[in-house]
């Protein structure tokens, strides 16, 4: 087996892995501030992709379409926070688990009824004509996924570290009560994290749709993998999800080649079990001592 084949597979898999990483990053953003997750994150990806497709139908220029798509995602994130999460958090209940699942189911039916159940192509100005780089075939669309994922994660991380609002974000993640005493509105910060998470979900949808097509079920497989990535990497580390995402994607591709194409999903699950058994805080997570 020529080495170039192995590299080709690893690269193709890793590029899909970056999409897992981006969706996983959406989980992390909200977990950091509120210790809650949106279990309907996959539906956010899907509905945003559909909405972007509809906006594209109006004939606006592509960059504007993407921007509006991201805005739509952010608004959707805010809506999830307001309807599914805020009250549950105020009452310190775990109600957000069920509520976010319900919102996800609702969005799924909504999409089925509004946009139909068929998979549709998602046009993009980026070419899908393969390029040959050092003997490996990649398409510009796939490269755009890699660039988009890394760029947005760098941007958000830079925002968290350098701006005042970002510092508030970090403060609420570190200690909600203490930061409230310091005059930071925790509710606002949680809202911001949900808006960011929604925008990230929309970006994932926009980036991956030209490759996978848009359909109501497009994110159901994706979100499960993303969840594995988030848990294996630890729900604290943005850098971790990229590494684990790349690794898992490549591993899936290679397993499907060497073990057999029926075993494609096995590595992700094995990795998840191993991580939970050996390092429940995640490979890149910090073990925190909880004072009771």
């Amino acid at each position: 087996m020529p080495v170039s084949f192995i590299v080709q597979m690893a690269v193709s898999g890793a590029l899909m892995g970056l999409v897992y990483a981006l969706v996983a990053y959406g989980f992390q953003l909200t977990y950091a501030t509120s210790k809650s997750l949106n279990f309907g994150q996959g539906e956010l990806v899907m509905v945003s992709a559909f909405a972007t497709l509809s906006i594209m139908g109006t004939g606006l220029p592509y960059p504007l379409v993407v921007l509006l798509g991201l805005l739509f995602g952010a608004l959707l994130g805010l809506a999830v926070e307001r309807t599914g999460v805020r009250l549950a958090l105020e009452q310190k209940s775990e109600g957000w688990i069920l509520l976010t699942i319900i919102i996800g189911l609702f969005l799924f039916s909504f999409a089925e009824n509004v946009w139909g159940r068929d998979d549709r192509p998602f046009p993009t100005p980026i070419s899908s004509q393969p390029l040959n780089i050092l003997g490996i075939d990649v398409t510009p669309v796939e490269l755009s996924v890699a660039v988009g994922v890394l760029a947005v994660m760098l941007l958000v991380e830079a925002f968290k570290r350098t701006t005042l609002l970002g510092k508030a974000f970090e403060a609420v993640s570190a200690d909600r009560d203490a930061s409230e005493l310091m005059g930071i509105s925790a509710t606002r910060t949680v809202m911001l994290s949900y808006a960011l998470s929604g925008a990230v979900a929309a970006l994932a949808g926009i980036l991956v749709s030209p490759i996978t097509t848009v359909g109501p079920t497009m994110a159901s497989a994706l979100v499960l993998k993303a969840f594995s990535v988030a848990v294996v990497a630890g729900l604290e580390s943005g850098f971790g999800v990229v590494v684990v995402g790349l690794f898992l994607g490549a591993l899936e591709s290679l397993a499907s080649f060497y073990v057999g194409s029926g075993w494609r999903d096995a590595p992700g699950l094995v990795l998840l079990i191993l991580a939970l058994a050996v390092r429940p805080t995640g490979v890149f997570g910090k073990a925190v001592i909880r004072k009771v």
Partner: protein
Amino acid sequence: MKRLLALLALTLALPALAADTIKLALTGPYSGGSAPMGVSTLDGSKLAIAEINAAGGIDVGGKKMKIEVIERDDEAKNDRGALIAQELASMPDLSGVIGSVNTGVVMAGDKYLQEKGITKIICPAAGSSSMTQWANKPDGTKGPAQLSIFRFAANDGIQAAMVVEEAINRKLFKVAIIHDDTNYGVSGRDDLLNQIKKQGGKLQVVTQEKFKIGDKDMTAQLLKAKALGAQAILIWGIGPELAAVANGMAKIGLKVPLIGGWTLSMSNFIDNAGKNANGTLMPQTFIELPISPRAKAFIDAYHKAYGVTRIPSPVSAAQGYDAVLIFAAAVKQAKSTNTVKIREALEDLQAPVKGVIATWRKPYSKWNPADVDTHEAFRRQQVVMGMVMDGRVIFGSEADRLRLAKEQQ
């Protein structure tokens, strides 16, 4: 007051009117991933029904009767299919059922129709087990002596035989088999392997690969085929994943023919694969090209009635159309709307039926549980190789086009 009386008279007349119709149920997946097939069948059937009704209806023993449609969407869900079949089976004056795409739906529902003896024509698809479930089993259990289920579809056996034949004719002796891991994909793979054996074992299968519904990255499977020197990919799956395979082949530069089941003509394959779909070969019962006046009239009528320039699934539309014509011929011959009499007429249809796919001469014969072909209409000669070209399906070989055009003169 006069108007009220007229209204009253009309309402009283309605039940009497209803009794003068032939009740025909159309079922199938009109929403969901199989919808292009279901909806095209429905539309094709309705076109035939509209034409029959416009001409005054069917002559049933000297009385002209119109067809009344009962429409049910099974959503490609097995449990919905079972419920619908039970509902239909409980209708006392139902003359027949035409429809179904999904094997699972057929397996879940048809037993209720058979129990009540309601005549059903499976159209446009469903896997081989939809008929073999009624046949004698190898373990000695006998099938029913009477069967009210007929099939109007190119069965997977014929299709697999044609796919293997095509690879041999094109001298592509090293092939990779790729299929999805559903019942449909796995039985397709078995049919292909059987046919390879049957046709002299000329093809060497370098690898067998599978994928799941929803998979988008097929690089690993395709690279394996490429590394092992496959000269053709034989494939069994449905629309979206087939598109992922075609796109993946373009990406890694695997320029070999993709040959597979008729699902390669689904619009969600052709649209999602774009130009990467060009050259793909698949068995077809109907090609959307005006090769004869009959085909042209049908295509034009469909486009006009539904406001489209391309039939989502031409095969399904044409089969839906022809199935209604055959059913109507059986009603006429039976001189009755009784579903059992219609079954008997279908098993021994005298007059040839001029459809858009072919002129059907005795499509069915008396049911024999040892030979499911007695209730199968399609034979090898009614199926041709189609090829995708620039978003449409055209004839894969000029010889087929000429042969069909001549037959339909």
